[in-house]
């Protein structure tokens, strides 16, 4: 058994390698295909003034920009494998360090909204399933539909206006303790909890139709106890899987939310990098986020394969990953 699992895990890890390599190629070629000359951007950022042609040519040589694409890519990849993503063109700081330093606030936001989404979404899904077809079910369904459809930048400003400016419950923007985290987390969590409620509901309904639940009910067990003891435990399996797979979407959503709330994190780093044409930062960012995402999927898969051996059979056929 353990040999089998070990084999699965190592195969699963191996299957990630080509994806990661492709990711690095995508990241590198994207920023190399973009219009604009990195050497010129770098000089202008450093001096605050437009540089001369001779200076640009010299720096191009120093940066190795006159080398052919495969050589530059190889060099960048080799450095990346050692954890060195180069220096930011605009700030001069190491890219890898900037990304790692800005990961915690973004993770903090993504994770806290995930938790909030679970607290909100799962009970709503259960209630919806238990009260299937009633007014409660329909209203919950409508609310979660709105939650899944409202753009984060609209919801964010609504929350700021009502909870921060009118009621003064939380600060409008910035970074700091949990008070600063509350509004961004709520903004991000709403869409997520809608998706969770929906999945919990459908999963619950499927379980409720199963024979053993009917039997339990027939035996006269109280409805609440059937729901929690028997149905919910089984219904939560697909929900747990979804959580891991939704993580990438949360990271993507966090970027917009960070901008609305002027919150430090990877989102603002990314927006600044795009604004400043900071190619080294952008390619590092894509590789970094892609790696985090691939790794989180891998962990979910491996953990899940330990919990439920049936998964391995599916997963080995087709590498799973959710569009974020």
């Amino acid at each position, binding site marked *: 058994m353990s040999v089998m699992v070990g084999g699965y895990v190592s195969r699963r890890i191996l299957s990630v390698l080509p994806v990661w390599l492709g990711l690095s190629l995508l990241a590198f070629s994207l920023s190399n295909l973009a219009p*604009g000359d990195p050497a010129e951007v770098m000089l202008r950022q450093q*001096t*605050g003034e437009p540089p001369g042609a001779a200076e640009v040519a010299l720096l191009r040589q120093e940066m190795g920009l006159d080398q052919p694409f495969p050589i530059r890519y190889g060099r960048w990849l080799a450095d990346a494998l050692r954890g060195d993503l180069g220096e930011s063109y605009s700030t001069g700081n190491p890219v890898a360090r900037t990304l790692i330093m800005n990961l915690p606030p973004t993770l903090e936001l993504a994770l806290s909204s995930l938790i909030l989404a679970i607290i909100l979404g799962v009970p709503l899904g259960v209630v919806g399933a238990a009260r299937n077809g009633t007014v409660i079910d329909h209203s919950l369904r409508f609310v979660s539909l709105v939650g899944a459809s409202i753009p984060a930048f609209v919801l964010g400003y609504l929350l700021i206006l009502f909870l921060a400016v009118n009621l*003064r419950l939380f600060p409008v923007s*910035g970074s700091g303790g949990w008070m600063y985290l509350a509004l961004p987390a709520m903004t991000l969590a709403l869409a997520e909890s809608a998706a969770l409620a929906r999945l919990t509901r459908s999963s619950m309904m499927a379980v409720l139709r199963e024979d053993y639940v009917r039997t339990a009910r027939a035996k006269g067990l109280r409805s609440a106890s059937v729901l929690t003891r028997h149905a919910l435990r089984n219904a939560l399996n697909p929900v747990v899987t979804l959580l891991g797979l939704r993580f990438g979407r949360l990271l993507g959503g966090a970027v917009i939310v960070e901008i609305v709330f*002027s919150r*430090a994190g990877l989102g603002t780093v990314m927006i600044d990098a*795009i604004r400043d*044409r900071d190619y080294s930062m952008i390619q590092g960012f894509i590789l970094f986020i892609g790696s985090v995402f691939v790794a989180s999927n891998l962990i979910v898969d491996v953990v899940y394969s330990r919990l439920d051996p049936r998964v391995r059979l599916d997963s080995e056929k087709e590498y799973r990953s959710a569009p974020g």
Partner: protein
Amino acid sequence: MKVFIAVSLFTVAACGNDGNSGAMPAAAGSLVIGAGADEFGLKVNRERLGRYPLNAGICEPMLRLTPGFDLEPLLARAWEYRDDNTYRFSLLTTPRFHDGRPLDAASVKFTLDQGIRDRTQYSFLDDSSVRVVDDSTLDIRPAKPNLRLLDQMAHLSYGTIASGTKARDNPVCTGPFRFSEYVPRSHLSVERNNAYWGDKAKLSRLTFRFIPDDNTRALALKAGNVDLIFDVNRSIVANLKETAGITVVVSPPGAVVLMYIATRGTAPHTAMSDPLVRRAVAHALDRRSLVRDVMEGYATEIATVNPPSVLGDFAAMIKGIPYDPARARYLLDSAGWKSVGRGTRRRGGRNLTLTLISQPGAVDRSITQYVQAQLGEVGIETRIEDLDPAGYASRLNSGKFDIDIEVPNQNDANPAFLLALRWYSKSNVRSAPFMLAGQRFDSLVDRSLASIDRGEAQKAAAEAMRVLVDEEVAAIPLAGISRIYAMSSRVKGFVPHPSRLNQRWSGVWIDR
């Protein structure tokens, strides 16, 4: 004990007759300021942490810019021009750095040398330019003729840091506040320098919180998260004014919304090389309506390209070109651009289409769109391109534009600052060759740069500006703009400086 303190406070208050005492408690609180985006992220700015582009009151240059854009002594006690392009500065001996060391000429040299190394100086200095004469005296001789050096020495970029210290991590200076903490993209805090050589600051702590979005900044003030905000968006002012407990303060004009013109643009951007078309564009723009309606009155009509007060008494020499759409149509007709009905004018099978470039973060979109609409009235089609900084720079530096709208600031006392930077043929700015304003303009700028007397320099600069704006129409000033601040009514003693960089904080306190 309590009685004793009260009595002694009373005594201090009663004895303090130097004008700035009043019934001020010893610690007048901590002020949180909602500033714009954190610009210290850029390598070139990080070396000037707390000095430029945001001045936190940590460092002081040798001279100081008054709200009237004149000079007054700060760390320098006296100065003289010693011929041969050289200025001699004598420093005060009383100021001490935050680490306790006395101010010395070596530190001023250290500061200027850092500017030379980082290429942030703009005074033609090189490695041999700064010479220490003795502990409190130094000579500065730019590598090229530049008698405006004196005016430039008031720039906060030249705020003196203690020799041998690392300005990017901990700026050690002589100012009324000392550096406390900098968290990138979050905040910069400073605390009162209790050993300050001049009038000590009233606030115990000053925190600049970086809030890039105009609207979020205003909301943060309304929600009571910050005490004072920078750069209030004109559209929010009315709402803030109606809010109880919030005061809005407006500075005199310190910047200009300016239309730069590609007088020598790269093909196909050649339409504006015709002076008739440039003049027609100037006649087509209703700047009064722009100021009154689009900018909601928080701007002034202006004829100069920088704040008029920097030209002293000579600002009136520049008249500006009046709004006269009929004249604009006539000029375009005589330049051969004929219109068919209300459509875009054509000449030789080509449409009169101008490319307007701008950075949305720097210039309000409503302004560019208003210009677009007004030019449309006289048959000129305008294509607006909102660009990011890199795309913007590359377009500007290759002459691939017809019109560029920017908001240049005046942060020193040099009347020829912008002239010598942007339209002067000897400027080393790469966009200058595409915007030249002609030989007469150049020789007048030369004269301004070579004048020892400030009045003469102002007069020559004003004449150059008249050529630029009234004759060549190589630049069209659209509106003079003010710094708008909003603050909690408990914030007292705030006097807005037209140059944000020269804003002073030591007189500010919080009323309880």
